[in-house]
Each structure stands twice: as structure tokens, then as C-alpha cells.
């Protein structure tokens, strides 16, 4: 039996802690080396997708397609300290979908239904606008498409036309 790890195994280990930071707003993501001190992180201010709807630039899917592993190493998490809690979260809802009878967009954004949310504190059933929400991402479903942060991208870093993926010391990462 061959005990040598395959390239895929190595990469799987290397990117196990991959994180996509911050839903919506000031989004970024991280590709974290499991035992290393260096991580990959997307600079959301440079990522094309983070500005979708503001600049009219076309969507970029390279984060999903350029990773050497089958299910992109990019993962999303919700960094509540920077973004989250909103009732109408553009990372959760497809905000251009028709509004339903409860006043919410009728469609969700994530194509893999990887995002769920739950109210923080006591929910107000009579006026949903009074509620805060915590958003949670199921990493086993997330493929790093970046629609939720409007972001995406290591092989990916090379492909990003905006050089939005940067390497940072772990302590400086989100």
C-alpha cells in the first residue's frame, strides 16, 4: 500500500481551514494552511464580485472553477463582528426576486442552500423587521462560488484579474 499522500491529499490538508469571511458587506475569504502561519485571504475591496450591483461589472466564477480540488477550497463563514444580523441580508436572499406576502424576497441566493439563519434573542413574530439574525454556513455544502460574499478565489489567486487574494500572517487574517 502506498502511504505517500497524493497531491490532492496534501492540498486538502493545506486548505482544510479555508474560510470565506464575512457575508455580504465588507466581504473577504481565507484559505488557511492547516498548520502554517500563512493564510490566503481575499481583499474584498478588490474582488470584482464584491462590487456587483455597484459597478455593473460581470460576475467572476474563477474561485469556483480554478481550484485544484474538486469542491473549491474556498469556504464562507459569517464574521458577525463586521457584518451580519440584518433582516434582509443580500447574501442570504436574492434581493431582486419578487417580494412575498411577508415582505421578504421570495428566493434565496445560495445555489446549494448552504446558508441558514436563526433569530438572535427573542423573535418578534408581528414585525419581522425587529429581528436580528445569525447566519450559519454549512461548509459541506459550500463550494466557494462566492455569490454570498460576492467573492471568490490560490490556483485562484493566480487567476484573479484583480489580484484580490493576498497572503497574510495568520494573526492579521480575519
Amino acid at each position, binding site marked *: 500500500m502506498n502511504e505517500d499522500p497524493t497531491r490532492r491529499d496534501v492540498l486538502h490538508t493545506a486548505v482544510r481551514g479555508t474560510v470565506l469571511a464575512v457575508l455580504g*458587506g465588507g466581504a473577504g475569504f481565507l484559505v488557511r494552511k492547516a498548520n502554517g502561519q500563512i493564510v490566503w485571504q481575499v481583499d474584498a475591496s478588490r474582488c470584482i464580485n464584491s462590487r456587483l450591483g455597484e459597478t455593473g461589472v460581470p460576475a467572476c466564477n474563477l474561485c469556483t472553477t480554478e481550484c485544484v480540488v474538486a469542491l473549491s477550497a474556498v469556504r464562507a463563514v459569517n464574521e458577525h463582528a463586521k457584518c451580519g444580523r440584518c433582516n*434582509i441580508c443580500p447574501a442570504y436572499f436574492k434581493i431582486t426576486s419578487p417580494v412575498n406576502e411577508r415582505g421578504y424576497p421570495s428566493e434565496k441566493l445560495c445555489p446549494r442552500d448552504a446558508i441558514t439563519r436563526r433569530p438572535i434573542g427573542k423573535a418578534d413574530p408581528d414585525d419581522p423587521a425587529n429581528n*436580528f439574525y445569525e447566519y450559519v454556513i454549512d461548509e459541506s455544502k459550500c463550494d466557494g462560488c462566492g455569490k454570498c460574499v460576492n467573492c471568490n478565489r490560490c490556483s485562484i489567486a493566480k487567476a484573479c484579474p484583480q489580484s484580490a487574494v493576498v497572503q497574510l500572517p495568520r494573526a492579521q487574517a480575519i
Partner: protein
Amino acid sequence: MHYRHSATISPQFKSTLTGVAVDAHGQLYAAGDSSIKLFDPAGQLRRSWTASQPVLSVGVASDGMVYAGEARQIEVFEGTGKLVHIWRNPKLAGRVTAIGFTGDSVLAGDTWDRAIQRFDRNGTFLNSIGKDNPVNGLLIPNGVVDFGVAADGAIYAANPGKHRVERYAPAGQLLGHIGRFDGNDPTGFSGCCNPTNVAIGGAIYTTEKAGPRAKMYDFEGKLSAVIAADLFDPNSKNMDIAVNGNGCVYVADTVKLAIFVFEPVNA
């Protein structure tokens, strides 16, 4: 109701354009960088003076005193630009992003408390506005508290997380609200958190971010006009808005650092 873009004022700020206000004589005050600039009704620069800190908002009282909202303080100037007071108060713990007046009170939007703080003209704290709701403050993901004051003294505060403009009594009671979310129909407010800014004249005037636009609603909440959308930089947000006695609307584009003037045109 329709509006046309009638003028663009370039106040020549280097980095920021944070606030606009109009006085009873139609003079325009613009806040940006660490200064305030005064323009006559024709848009000509008449006066400019510096503040001790970056100015985050500006308001002009009926007696002509000019209030500059800053971080944790308000500077009060005479119309000539002479500094007469600096207000510091524990209730001004954050950035003061809006200034207004109702009766004998001075109102300050405080981002730390997510509320509007009401003071008397001597700077004595009276009460908070916007705290008396289930989420203990205004939902301001954009980091700005903004409001307008109607002729009857009611305070109309932007509550962007709720996609509403809320109407408050000066003592703080919530009296009602207009607005709802809609990502397509311009009668609603789009995105995560709009409107960002509010002004009151003969109607309710609002601005939004992503994509930026200015709109006018009647006091029942019915959309009267989309004043403008395409004119603004796509990344402009927290665009302060003011309206004069003739219904002319001033919108501060925070990226282009320009003030766009819109005149009403009755169809």
C-alpha cells in the same frame, strides 16, 4: 412630480463630503474634510472655515448658528465662522452624523448609541430618540444616523435595517413609519439597508446606496418621484440630502465630492 438636474456645486473638498444643510435664506452649507463651506443661493462660495476635527454633519439653526457634528463633540459657530461653543457630552459617545432642530432643542445623530440625542440650546441633554424599540436603537449597518425635522416638530429618522423612515415625537415616542423593502420596485427601499439619509420639506426626501438614488415620498408613504439615480457615482453611499423652501433638493455625492441640485418640474 418630476425633477431636473439644474446645477452641480463642487465644494472642492479633498477627501470627504459628509453633509449639506440649507438655511432660511436659501444659503447652502456643506461639510467635508475638516471644514464648512457656505454657498449663496446661486451656488457661489461665500465663506469657508475650518473646524478642529473632521466634520461629519452640519446644521443651521433658525438664529443662524451653525452646528458641526464631529466625533464625540459638536462645534457651534456663528454664521461668520467664529467658534462660540464646543459641546462635549457623554451622550455624544460616537460620531455625530446628523444635526437638526425642533422647537428649542438641538438634535444630534449619535452612531455609538444608534440614536438621536436631544439637547437644549445650552447643550444640556434632554432625552434619546430611537431607543424605544425592540432592537434598542436604529439599525444602521451603514454607520450613519440621519434624520429630518418637519414643520410640526416631528422627527423623521432613517432606520435602514428596517427599510423605513420612522416618525418620532421630540420626547422619543414612535408615532409611525413609512417604507418597506423591495429590490425591484422603486416604491420600496432596496438592498440590506436603506434609506441611508432623510430630509424633510413639503415631503419626505430620501437617499439610498447600491445603487444610489434620491426619491421623494408624501407623508403617507406614497412615492412621489424618483428624483435621480444615474447621476450619482455607483459607489456613493450615505449621501446627505437637504431641501430648500422652493422644493429644490441638494444631494451630496460622497464619491464625486459634488453636490447635485435638483429643481422640481410640475408636469
